[in-house]
């Protein structure tokens, strides 16, 4: 069996840890706590069942045993939460996998593809809730919920609780009360709580466990003493049982325990360890650094070959070694016991600890479990290795929407290490940009630039140099500056060869910028390159976007057939690649909507256009959003809502006014305002944002072209690119570009072809 597998349809989907989806095996010695099972079953009346108490109260064991019995009545999905789930994509990918395994009626492939790429709160969860409504009664257990620390991710769970259908029971086990709206749920009678006092062993339960299950044959008075001394704390009673099993005089040990004022854990831990043979003590102490254990991993960490036997023996005799899968391949120590072992390890062999972590890092690194490899590298203080791994794998995680994980890893580094490593600063910058955080991106870029050495390379993520990574970053994320995209894109194209895995990203950025700039011919050339080169290097986000952009261009040229063909192709590709709801590919929906509208089907176009705007709003790039609004407004107007259309265009104008270089988008906006007949009726709304910007305003259109502009206009009739025109005239690219924009503005056009045509009509050529 493999321990990890890739989610269904998308190569970059988060790696699912299947072991998280199995409840811990219920130890044969565990007692059936019927009184608690009944209360849990009562919880199906409410929305949320909360099992909240400190470690060692047997939360996971109770729920695993309850699941076994409850699963005969209804499906019970299980997921063990861990720190990796702070990334909402990871959390919900696993929840969906768990639910789909429990309920075969759920559309598995579709939901998991969506979970990997769609916005969680806006798309994934509403869809999931709708599907659950169809499923009938089901329970979902989220074990170890306290390990979730991200407030944003917790909010997605709060939303889920609030919108759950009445037939779904959510059971959360946690050490600390979660930041969910518990007060409200309690007041509405929708919360069932099981707390520490409910989970304490009663005298009869302890008696059944110690005497009935473990056959320890204790005097009932000694059982009572143990329950009193441990206050019914199950872990205390387990620890006592482990030491009692190896004791010659059990009554004497109970008496000694009762007589000491030492803390239960402190007293019993020593006894438990002493009850095992020295080799096993060493095995437990040294493997306690691992979050999960399997024999090959333990062998690697201990530089030994006897781990399989040691694990098998411990699994039979020690309640604190918990199997994680039915095949008994993976285990973990009970959290409390692991803590005790780690303290003891630190005391006995503190010098060994970094080496143990280092070998665990090497094993996980060789086996491709990057999350754990990075965890151990950081614990070993091996930041160089951790950094190398992050620099190599971040693209994979980012493409799967797991940018938060990458940010989290970097946050665990000493600050000065990141700040002095340009490679890591660049990863930080990319991740910030992908999360729509411009200031954070610019701060990281500034620090990387200040370090110098930008020509160093190649980088493990495929860039030829740091300078090239920076350049592609600025080309991909223009933050509303077309000239900047073109400049950085051209530079990137010169730096990264045709074989580079980043080539399709660069050609897409250039194609997109030319499109925004009205240079449709150049845009088409670049986008066709992207379409050709993206599939072999799995750059599907840009591969799909390019097809959608080509459809928009075909529409501008009036080629309706080609426009529709490309729009459908883009939508089909997006569906195939699990990118249908991805914020990175909002143009797919815009393109489809524009094509449908052009085909005279506004009612069908509207939902696609709305979705395009919605996704592009989340993406955070102003040029993309303006383009989406430009697509949506005419159809909204055609459907009769002129006021809303005016508001949409006003929003687009305000966005364009704030852009450093919006290309010809303001011209297209002015045309859209005229075409929708909103320039007078909707004047108040459109005036709100567009007033400060002259571009596209009718008053300017008849302005005379300057001598230089006329020169450039003549060259625009040929095949030279703006860069080549610059070389011809001994002008910088930026200067030529500024003139070209002025020409378009004065002619009131949005593309190079239109400029030439309009100039011919006006006999300027």
């Amino acid at each position, binding site marked *: 069996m493999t321990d990890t597998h890739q989610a269904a349809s998308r190569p970059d989907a988060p790696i699912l840890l299947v072991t998280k989806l199995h409840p811990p095996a219920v130890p044969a010695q565990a007692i059936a706590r019927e009184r608690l099972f009944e209360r849990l079953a009562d919880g199906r009346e409410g929305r949320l069942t909360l099992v909240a108490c400190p470690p060692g109260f047997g939360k996971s064991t109770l729920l695993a045993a309850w699941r076994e019995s409850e699963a005969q009545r209804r499906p019970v999905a299980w997921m063990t939460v861990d720190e990796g789930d702070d990334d909402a994509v990871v959390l919900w990918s696993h929840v969906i996998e768990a639910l789909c395994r429990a309920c075969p009626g759920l559309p598995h492939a579709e939901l998991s593809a969506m979970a990997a790429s769609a916005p969680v709160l806006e798309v994934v969860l509403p869809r999931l809730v709708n599907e659950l409504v169809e499923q009938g009664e089901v329970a979902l257990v989220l074990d170890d919920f306290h390990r979730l620390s991200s407030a944003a991710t917790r909010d997605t769970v709060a939303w889920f609780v609030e919108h759950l259908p009445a037939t779904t029971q959510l059971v959360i086990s946690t050490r600390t009360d979660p930041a969910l709206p518990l007060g409200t749920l309690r007041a509405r009678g929708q919360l069932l709580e099981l707390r520490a006092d409910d989970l304490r062993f009663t005298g009869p339960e302890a008696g059944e466990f110690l005497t009935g299950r473990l056959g320890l044959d204790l005097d009932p008075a000694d059982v009572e003493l143990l329950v009193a001394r441990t206050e019914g704390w199950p872990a205390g009673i387990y620890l006592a049982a482990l030491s009692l099993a190896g004791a010659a005089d059990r009554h004497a040990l109970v008496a000694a325990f009762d007589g000491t004022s030492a803390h*239960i854990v*402190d007293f019993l831990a020593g006894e438990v360890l002493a009850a095992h043979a020295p080799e096993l003590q060493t095995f437990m102490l040294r493997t306690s650094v691992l979050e999960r254990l399997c024999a090959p991993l333990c062998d690697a960490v201990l530089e030994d070959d006897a781990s399989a036997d040691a694990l098998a023996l411990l699994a039979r005799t020690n309640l604190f070694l918990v199997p994680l899968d039915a095949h008994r391949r993976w285990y973990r120590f009970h959290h409390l016991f692991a803590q005790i072992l780690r303290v003891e390890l630190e005391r006995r062999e503190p010098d060994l600890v970094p080496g143990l972590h280092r070998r665990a890092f090497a094993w996980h690194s060789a086996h491709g479990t990057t999350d754990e490899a990075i965890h151990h590298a950081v614990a070993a203080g091996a930041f160089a290795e951790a950094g190398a791994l992050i620099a190599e794998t971040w693209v994979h995680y980012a493409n799967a929407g797991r940018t938060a994980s990458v940010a989290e890893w970097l946050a665990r580094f000493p600050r000065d290490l990141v700040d002095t490593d340009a490679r890591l600063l660049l990863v930080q910058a990319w991740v910030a940009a992908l999360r729509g955080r411009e200031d954070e991106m610019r701060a990281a870029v500034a620090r990387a630039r200040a370090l110098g050495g930008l020509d160093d390379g190649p980088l493990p993520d495929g860039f030829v140099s740091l300078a090239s990574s920076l350049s592609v970053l600025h080309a991909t994320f223009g933050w509303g500056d077309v000239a900047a995209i073109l400049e950085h894109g051209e530079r990137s194209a010169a730096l990264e060869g045709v074989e580079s895995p980043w080539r399709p990203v660069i050609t897409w950025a250039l194609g997109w910028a030319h499109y925004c700039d009205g240079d449709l011919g150049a845009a088409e050339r670049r986008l066709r390159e992207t379409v050709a080169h993206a599939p072999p290097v799995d750059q599907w986000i840009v591969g799909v976007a390019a097809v959608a952009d080509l459809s928009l261009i075909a529409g501008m040229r009036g080629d309706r057939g080609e426009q529709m063909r490309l729009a459908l192709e883009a939508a089909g590709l997006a569906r195939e690649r699990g990118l249908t709801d991805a914020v990175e590919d909002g143009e797919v929906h815009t393109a489809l909507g524009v094509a449908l509208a052009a085909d005279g089907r506004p009612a069908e176009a509207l939902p696609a256009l709305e979705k395009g705007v919605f996704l592009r709003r989340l993406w955070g790039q102003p040029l993309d959003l303006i383009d989406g609004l430009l697509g949506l407004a005419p159809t909204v107007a055609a459907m009769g809502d002129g006021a809303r259309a005016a508001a949409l265009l006003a929003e687009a104008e305000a966005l364009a006014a704030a852009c450093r270089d919006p290309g010809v988008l303001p011209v297209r906006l002015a045309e859209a305002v005229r075409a929708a007949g909103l320039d007078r009726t909707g004047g108040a709304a459109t005036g709100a944002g567009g007033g400060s910007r002259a571009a596209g305003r009718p008053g300017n259109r008849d302005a005379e072209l300057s001598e230089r502009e006329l020169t450039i206009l003549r060259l625009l009739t040929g095949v030279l690119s703006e860069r080549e025109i610059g070389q011809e005239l001994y002008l910088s690219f930026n200067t030529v570009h500024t003139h070209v924009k002025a020409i378009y503005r004065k002619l009131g056009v949005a593309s190079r072809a239109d400029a030439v045509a309009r100039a011919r009509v006006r006999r300027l050529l």
Partner: protein
Amino acid sequence: MTPEAHGRQYEVVLRGEIGDHYALLFDGMRLERVAGTTVLTGPVVDQAHLHGVIARIQELGIELVSVNPVPEQRSTS
């Protein structure tokens, strides 16, 4: 948010008497056993540090009785 006092002295009281070696877990805080309780005393850098100490106490299954900043005059005595 109020600004955090740097390196402020805290006194953390736990139920039960725990061994000196547990001081390792608490970044060298002083550990004293007093009549069925354990008192940890030492500098706490910031809120994150304090929460870390409390989380470790919980992981060990130890009951937390109280957490108090130590007044300056007492910490210097």
